[in-house]
């Protein structure tokens, strides 16, 4: 392109002069903060939590009643336009999308920084009533799924009614909801796709929403090969409205990395470079604050360690902080245990979470099974918790078989209160079981419930039908701490699968039978059997 440089220079210069002011004016209304929290865990792993939050100061979610009319024009300098358009188009005040891979081990890793850690994809949104039918909540919910699936390269479009429930008790809004005129109110839509996986194609569009994607700031650490090599990893997109402040978008990435596995000498020493294959090259200039925090392990579990470089901010509450906001130099944090030759896995790991939950599906039969949930309260106080079980229609509960027993085997049904059950609609809607469980201090409670496995229609089977169906995780939400949700592991149910070549066998077999039986019968009925005297014919013809 020999001919273009002088022309280009002029044009670019002119454009910069014109737009420079506009960018600055709007940047003050938008605020971007980024934070990375690293938490060395007692079992030698490191939990990393990236959080990128953008605040659109003074913005108010679109009122559903204005959906038919033209919207005000949107202009953002930091807030991603692609997401802003989705929020305005469908008038969504709050939504949460998480796509995770793996099972979060609460006992060993404690509570995650961002509570949405259920396996697979989870999407929930609070939406206000629309006026017309085309702008009803369910229509917009479907449109939201499709828009997000296009934006994040995920198969969320499959979250149709088959997966959608409305468990408002377990998922209260995390922000505020705008006031709506009298008859209208907000309601929740929640759906999960437990088999959804997260990979580079999800991270690519995710990074494109950030103002400093993979070049500067802590987002530079998000190298897909390392992130997806982690023992557990997940992406999250959270949008909420805070009255008085504005619309807040939080993009989060969480990962549990294993330095012991990477290390040749089986040591638990880690550095940003060893965990992510990169260090932080420079700060993201757009960020109002950019902080890296390292949660220091307590003396009992951590042994003696060294942290380099020295924390730039004061070390308080066993948190070492590094403020990158105005830093220009490269940062590579390293934590070493010089006295430790080799990491020895601790044998007595006391659970780090408030509750320990184990959920299994028992029984080998293809028609019946038993759902078993074991909940242990790890705290010295009584804990009340919501229990939420969403079941696709192909696993039906026999509610009368619900049994609750305590650790010593005695029946303690009285712990199970406030139960609400929405039965499933075959081929259409999932079942929803909600209850409140009261857990005495250090008590273990067993729940058991017999289930019926449905027989699917031939067309309803997945292409890999033999693999079974993934069931979404159950959720426990402590009444006192509604944002410390606990997700159980997802389950796999083995449904009766037909021999998929059977229809062809049937067609071939019945065709053969028809040919044989009908054919010969038809022959017998239609054919006229006569005796032909050949000699006569011959004699007549010769004559």
């Amino acid at each position, binding site marked *: 392109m020999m001919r273009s440089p002088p022309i280009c220079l002029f044009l670019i210069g002119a454009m910069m002069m014109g737009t420079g002011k506009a960018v600055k004016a709007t940047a003050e209304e938008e605020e971007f903060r980024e934070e990375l929290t690293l938490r060395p865990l007692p079992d030698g792993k490191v939990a990393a939590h990236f959080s990128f939050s953008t605040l659109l100061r003074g913005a108010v979610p679109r009122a559903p009643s204005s959906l038919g009319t033209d919207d005000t024009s949107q202009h953002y300098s930091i807030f991603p336009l692609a997401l802003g358009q989705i929020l305005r188009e469908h008038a969504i005040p709050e939504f949460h999308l998480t796509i995770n891979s793996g099972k979060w081990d609460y006992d060993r890793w404690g509570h995650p920084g961002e509570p949405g850690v259920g396996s697979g994809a989870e999407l929930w949104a609070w939406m206000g009533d629309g006026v017309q039918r085309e702008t009803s909540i369910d229509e917009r919910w479907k449109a939201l799924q*499709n828009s997000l699936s*296009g*934006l994040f390269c995920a198969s969320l*479009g499959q979250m149709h009614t088959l997966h959608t429930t409305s468990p408002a008790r377990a998922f209260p809004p995390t922000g505020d909801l705008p006031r709506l005129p009298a008859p209208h109110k907000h309601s929740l839509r929640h759906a999960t796709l437990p088999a959804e996986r997260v990979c580079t*194609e999800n991270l690519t569009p995710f990074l494109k929403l950030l103002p400093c994607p993979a070049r500067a700031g802590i987002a530079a650490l998000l190298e897909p090969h390392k992130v997806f090599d982690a023992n557990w990893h997940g992406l999250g997109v959270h949008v909420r409205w805070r009255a008085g402040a504005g619309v807040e978008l939080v993009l989060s990435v969480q990962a549990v990395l294993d330095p012991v596995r990477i290390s040749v000498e089986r040591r638990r020493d880690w550095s940003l470079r060893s965990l992510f294959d990169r260090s932080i090259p420079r700060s993201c200039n757009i960020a109002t604050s950019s902080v890296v925090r390292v949660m220091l392990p307590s003396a009992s579990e951590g042994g003696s360690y060294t942290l380099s470089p020295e924390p730039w901010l004061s070390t308080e509450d066993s948190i070492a902080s590094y403020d990158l906001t105005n830093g220009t130099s490269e940062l590579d944090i390293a934590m070493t245990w010089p006295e430790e030759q080799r990491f020895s896995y601790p044998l007595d790991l006391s659970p780090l979470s408030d509750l320990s939950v184990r959920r299994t599906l028992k029984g080998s039969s293809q028609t019946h099974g038993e759902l078993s949930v074991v909940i242990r309260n790890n705290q010295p106080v009584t804990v009340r918790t919501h229990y939420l079980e969403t079941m696709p229609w192909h696993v039906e509960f026999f509610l009368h078989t619900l049994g609750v027993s305590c650790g010593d085997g005695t029946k303690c049904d009285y712990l199970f209160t406030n139960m609400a059950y929405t039965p499933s609609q075959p081929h259409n809607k999932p079942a929803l079981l909600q209850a409140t469980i009261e857990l005495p201090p250090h008590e273990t409670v067993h729940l058991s419930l017999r289930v019926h496995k449905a027989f699917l229609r031939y067309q309803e089977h*997945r292409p890999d039908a033999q693999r079974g169906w993934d069931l979404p995780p159950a959720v426990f939400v402590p009444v006192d701490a509604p944002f410390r949700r606990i997700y159980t592991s997802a389950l796999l149910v083995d449904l009766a699968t037909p021999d998929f070549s059977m229809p062809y066998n049937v067609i071939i077999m019945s065709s053969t039978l028809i040919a044989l039986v009908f054919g010969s019968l038809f022959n017998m009925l239609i054919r006229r059997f006569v005796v032909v005297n050949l000699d006569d014919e011959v004699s007549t013809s010769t004559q």
Partner: protein
Amino acid sequence: MLSFSFPLAFIIFLPFILIVEAGHDLYDGNVPAKASESSHTNNWAVLVCASRYWFNYRHMANALGMYRTVKRLGIPDSNIILMLADDAACNSRNHFPGCVFANRGHALDLYGENIEVDYRGYEVTVQNFLRLLTGRVEPDVPRSKRLLTDDRSNIFVYMTGHGGDEFLKFQDSEEISAFDLADAFEQMWQKKRYNEIFFMIDTCQANTMYSKFYSPNILATGSSRIRENSYSYENDDDVGVSVIDSYTHFVLEYLEGINKTSTTSMKDLFDKYDPEIIRSHPGVRSDLFHRPLEQTLITDFFGGVAHAEVMDTDFMHDSSPLVPTSQVDSIIKDEHSLTEVLSNPTDGTGDHQVRLLRAWGSVGVIGLLVALAILNTKR
């Protein structure tokens, strides 16, 4: 100060006048569009891996190899529809998370750090594929999952998977037949959804899949004849499965030598087909295609390089709001046309020469003025 401002204003405005002049003249150099040249203004690619399961890793690698090539040759992600029926990169069986390799020794990671998969997993169905081609999608379907082509679009359709005589299996549970595909292309033609289609398929008995096409402007090629298998190229012991198919490996290797400005034609590619190396007999069907293959560039389908359509200067002045957007594209037009014009003085008319000289002259003047301005301010 006042005495300074007039020359300054002159210096600032003169270049713009000259740019307009120079721009017109320079762009006129692109005009000649021979009959044999493609008249497309945009490129699209639809890459389909129809196979699920880990042992079909090579089909994922086939599609991703094509994805990497079309992206390298200039088709942007927004114009590529990638369908992968399974997740090979983040599969729990994959020893190299986030990587898909197409050769032994892991030289090149096809998944990379920047990839957009538009249809994945259970979404890859015959229905979704046909809806994508024909544009009969629900209104909610996002832009990235639509084929937003027009009658000036050149589309490269690549399919891979397990197939047989006139069918290709999707996800091992349903099939698309050669008739379905031919009808979909006909519907696209009737709806003016393409200018030309280059159809490539790598599967067993692949050549049967294009045998039913009947719509114009389709060039098709396949990996193997009827009653003939297509084989994989090589295994990798660390990945544990075959990593790529023989035919696709051959084509990709050939395309590695192509860049955005390459003048290599389809005929060059087809002539290189060697059944000995590929281990099957690739086929070509060009009876529906109206252009001679030796004048059909590979970049007409694999590259995102659009040919600009430049109108007369007078016409442009008359109806400036109607200037097509392709005008902008002409900036990124491949350079060979300009170099051709420059290197063959006998080829162009004298008038053309003068205009070109004037254009370059004005660029030179602009350069001089800029230098002058810089010198002035420094003083």
